[in-house]
């Protein structure tokens, strides 16, 4: 995968080390996902990388037909992390066995050589 900037390149390097992370502004403390090159709240450039807990709740989920890097009946979902940010991810399990609001926790897998992605499973 080609990364459009150094921030996303770093994000995927962190995933390879089994860390789901984002940036936090060292000046105003704002934490956002996706990670940023500078802080949109205070315009500060001094941002640090922080690892997220990887714990959250499943906000919504669905499946789709087989596509690029996606094999039906895999589940995709939106996960609200305990830190107050949301991620789109793969969800481990069958659609019928999952429910909105259930607790989930992060896990990592190599989607293709050199590309590690996050996914979530029931906590």
């Amino acid at each position: 995968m080609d990364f459009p900037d150094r921030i996303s390149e770093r994000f995927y390097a962190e995933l390879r080390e089994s860390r789901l992370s984002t940036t936090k502004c060292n000046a105003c403390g704002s934490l956002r996902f996706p990670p940023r090159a500078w802080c949109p709240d205070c315009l500060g450039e001094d941002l640090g990388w922080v690892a997220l807990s990887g714990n959250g709740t499943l906000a919504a989920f669905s499946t789709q037909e087989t596509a690029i890097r996606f094999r039906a009946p895999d589940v995709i979902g939106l996960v609200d992390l305990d830190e107050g940010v949301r991620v789109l991810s793969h969800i481990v399990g069958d659609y019928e066995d999952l429910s909105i609001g259930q607790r989930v926790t992060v896990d990592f897998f190599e989607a293709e050589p050199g590309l590690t992605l996050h996914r979530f499973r029931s906590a």
Partner: protein
Amino acid sequence: MSAWIAGVGAVPCRRWYGERTAHELSLAVIRAALLDAGLAPRDVDGLYTTQIGWFAPQEKFLAQRMAETLGIQTRAQMEIECGGASSLVALRIAADDVGSGRVRCALVWAADVEVPQKSFDPEKHMHLVEQALKYQTPYVQPYGVVGAVALYAMSAQAYMHEHGVPPAEVAEVSVLLRRHASANPLAYLRDPITVEDVLSSRIVSPPMHFLECAPWADGAAAVVVVGSELAGPRAVRIRGFGEAHDPTTFAPLVGPISRYPSAGRAAEDAYKRAGVGPSDVDVAEVYGPFSVEELQLYEELGFAGPGQAARAVATGRTTYGGDLVVNPSGGRLSFGHPPYATPLYETFEIVTQLRGEAGERQVDGARLGLFNAEHGMVNGSVVAVLERGGG
């Protein structure tokens, strides 16, 4: 704002337009709109258009090429890119240019010809899919979500969960829109369907069934906008536009999942500028590419309370004899959905209704009309309000 719609033109919405190019379709609808307005190319001094499809090669200088074909000098010409809202943003800018006196006669058009429509060939067309997917950030794109449906499906799931709306109630809107389309010669899908048909069609992305998804289609439409000096007795007055955007793409990483807040803000803005409210609207065209999104938008536009839209449809409040008629054209689900042209097809329908020229599908006494377009899930919306009345 003093801007009027003097003419509209369209070709029928279809699965695929064969070998006809976007430029040819554009010329056909522009001619029809100018004839409808009683104006000629030499009267036009502003050109406003969009890209020519989502899965299509991106072309440059579309407006300039049209100026050359029409042989006209202009004071404004542009191509607007704002996803499914593109041609409605173009119409808003054209109306602003006419209202401010920059332009006397603005021509707005969109032709949408989706290349893989006839048959998808992975070898020939995959680059178009990959190009289209570049709208996704690197934090979403690797997860392999290709179309909009899985993402809208998550919003639909959250909505149905939050409000306890059962699938059979949601399915009613697909049935009603097909009934509306059956009276519209421009609509793509016109054969009646039942709730059972909807619920037994295959699930594309749960909870969305095949008959709850708008069909991809090709099409083209054009609209002529003028000031009061050129507005004839059939002209329809533009009362106001609202526009609002959220900082999210199809998968919202901030804000609610079960709602379209930008559509609500755009509607509020449009109502305020037009000096009217949702209960004044007689006829509306709503940009719902999926059944649940259609219902969510009725709520954002103020036609039903939170979680009440499916019930409003089932009890006849959104069709002939109800509070207002929503999507008399058949809506995206049955009219067909060529996204770049869709907002101008909506304009065509509302103008036709307000002129009292809709024939079999005429909404009695239609005086005030509204239509909206969506950029894509949760992220942006434009709402327009039009009023019957000669120039």
